[in-house]
């Protein structure tokens, strides 16, 4: 199986965390907050595109709002494959951390 890149993992996780509220801007804000770094819109959409191609997320359009200049939002949702992928990632990382001393100490 092919592994995801770090940004893809982060975006995937964020979509999961935001649940119903996951659309471009929100995902970006969340990722920026969690990583503490500046993320441009483009750098969110590239992983989003790839995740969608790989079938881990699904998107649908929602109603437009005035502050978006009348443009609709595109909401993202995890698919089953996406959910499975997240579990897989978590499992792998835990396996790798198993028995290692906590680095924060």
């Amino acid at each position: 199986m092919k592994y995801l890149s770090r940004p893809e993992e982060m975006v995937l996780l964020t979509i999961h965390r935001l649940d119903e509220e996951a659309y471009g801007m929100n995902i970006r804000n969340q990722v920026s907050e969690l990583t503490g770094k500046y993320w441009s819109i483009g750098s969110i959409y590239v992983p989003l595109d790839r995740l969608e191609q790989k079938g881990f997320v699904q998107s649908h359009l929602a109603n437009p709002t005035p502050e978006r200049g009348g443009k609709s939002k595109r909401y993202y949702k995890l698919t089953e494959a996406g959910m499975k992928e997240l579990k897989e990632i978590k499992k792998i990382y835990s396996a790798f951390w198993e028995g290692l001393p906590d680095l924060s100490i």
Partner: protein
Amino acid sequence: MKTILENSNKTKSPPKIARCILSRISRYAYRDNISGDFEELYNEIYRESGLVSAYIWCLKHIVRSFPVFIITSFRRSTAMLSNYFKIAFRNVKRNKAFSFINITGLSVGMTCSILIILYINYELSFDKYHKKADDIYRVVLTWTGEKGRGGELYNVMPGIFQSAVTREIPEVLLATRAKTHEVIINHSGNLFKETGIRYVDPDFLEIFSFPLISGNAETALNEPYSLILTEDMAKKYFSDGDPLGKVLNIDKNDYKITGIIKNVPENSHFTFDFLASFTTMFNIYPDPAFIHKWDSSLSWNMYILASMNTIKEEIENNINRTFDEQTQDYEFRLQPLTDIHMYSKVKYDDYSNISDIRYVYMLTSIAVLIILIACFNYISLSTARSIKRAREVGIRKVSGAHRFNLIRQYIIESVIMAIFAFTISIFLTYFLLDFFNDLTSRNLEFKSIFRGNMIYGLFGIIILSGFISGSYPALFLSSFKPVNVIRGIMKSGSNRNSLIRSSIVVFQFMISTILIISSLIVFDQLDFIRNRDLGFKKDYIICGNVQGIMKDRFRLFKEAIVENPGIKEVYGLGVLPNGMHWNSFPNWEGKESDDKVYFALGMVEYNFIDFFKIEIMEGRNFSQEFVSDLKEAWILNETAVNAIGLEEPIGKKFGLSQNEPSGKIIAIIKDFNFSSVHKNVEPLALCLKRRDWFNSYAIKLNSENSANTINYLKEKFEEFAPDYPFDYFFLDESLDSMYRAEQKLGEIFNIFTFIAVFISCLGLFGLISYTSEQKTKEVGIRKVLGSSVGQIIYILSKELILWIIYAIAIAFPIAYFSMSAWLNNFAYRISIGFIPFVIASGLTLIIAILTISIQITKTALSNTVDTLRFE
């Protein structure tokens, strides 16, 4: 609370350009959401930190998106490219005649431009190879306070200037004189005449970048009788080994060879084969004190090297201020080294390497005109054929093509055509370059096409001609309305279209007519110059210079050869009619103290006036019967008498001494032309030669058997002076060579005229084939209704002939004024008569009619049954 709420409700759209870029680079399906996100983010920043920050943020993103934007745009635009290519090639194949006309016209036009760009590139490269070229100036002088003659420049400089200028003027770092000589080299018993020797100061090698191959640049020119050879001369004289340290015998003196230098590049305004140390001059010159005087000047070229970042005018002023006392009659002028070739303007400069910027302008405009004519062929033919492609446009538009896409397609098509024509023109250039070199007397190399800036020029030609020829057809074709064209309605814009086509034909034939008229006038003028009565006899006269011992023996030689029946008369030694380069401000009886008239002086032999058959208006010729003639007699030309305003001049005092004129005027002669016919005759004073400084002779031959006579002279000459070669030229040929630039111009004009007419006719032929094809049905119907063949020819050709008559009418005034301007360069010019205009219009009409007649006759004679059964 309320304000915050209000504020948060306020929305602002980001700048339009940002939205444009974004929508272009984002994927179509996502475009809305992404730009939505962008606007949301923009608004967030706007709410939090204000409009300015939002704008800055936006700007930052615009700049950062440039690379992606360019890549995306490119990728998008190439998607249809292969289709454009395919259609373009199919069109070329399908319309063979149309493509042939376009490609031939364009490639001929491009060949002209490539050749001309090569030429201009070379012309502008003159003297630029010197490392310090920007700081090198030639110093020339101009006489001040002359009557009626302003600003003529002379490169005769006082020799002392060289040391004075470096000492007194801080901005001038180095200076060198360069004196040309004609010498005889005696190399192991063989005699060679060499004209390319220059006597220069040691600084010469430091100012100019002529690299020494061997020898020490610092010391090579310090000692008298030191000599540096170019590679070619080293090979010529010392093919068998290293010449360094050897000795070469020049004019009976031994010169030591102290260096070998690379050959002078051809794009130099002056050339040399030998450099000799200037200190030698002090030993060989008859009167060395001359070199140290301010008020006497021999022909030195003077070059200075200024320190960097100095302004030419400042140095010039500084020099003139500093030497004001020494230079009463004249002022100095500086000429930047790199300007000399194009803007010399110096009288009696070495013309072989001097050109004129006007020729560059003239050639450039001709090249542009020819390319335009070729491009216009494309425009007129493509619009004429546009109906055939209207369906394609309709289908493309229906399938979703924007107007922009269509414009791009047709421009790409014409650029493809241009590239194709360009490839052909590269081959043409290769084969025509030798011919062009002959024409312009340059030595251009084919491989320099691919060097340096040339590439941009060539690229420019392709793109420009592609765009010009594609522009109008693209705009026009892309404006078709799909509904109309698919239904077969083709009305809109056809009037405007035929207007464009007719103006193109008018323009093309106007240019052709102008060129024909101009070349006829140029031809007439050249003919006029060549056959003009110069005021003295020049036929069957051979001239030449003598050196050394022959100067003393010339009298004996003269007596010996005069017996020969082939020789009519001998003149010598003295100044020749075209050699009056000696100038001064003379003094005369009744002269106001501030009157200054610049005279040319001629020191001649007794028989000068008889020999050259110059007409005496008044007074008597020089005569040996009057002993005083040798010292006192002056003969003036008419212009001189008018210039000094003497009434009853015979017997009046005249001379060069500023205190008291010692001579007197004995005769007035009719003006004869002693310099170029570009200039009016100047004041001239002739006197008998008093010193043996002159070395020119002239021999008048019998017209029969002149070749034998010359052989006889050669034998006799070598008998008298075995150490010197017999060297001669025909006077009339030498005079002709003064007009070589004009003759060149004449030839160039003829050739380009031919090309312009040719390309115009190609276009006309294409257009007439198209229109007569359009009108086949009309012709058929007319014939059925009883039109005669003659009437049909009249109907078909009426319009075109009318256009050409318009073209001729517009060409007349333009040609008249531009040729008047050109003729004003000549002091002796023809007046523009009506004959060239009549010939040119006749010629244009005949050529045009011949071009269209084939096609029109074919259509007019066609069988009605065939034409009406067309579909």
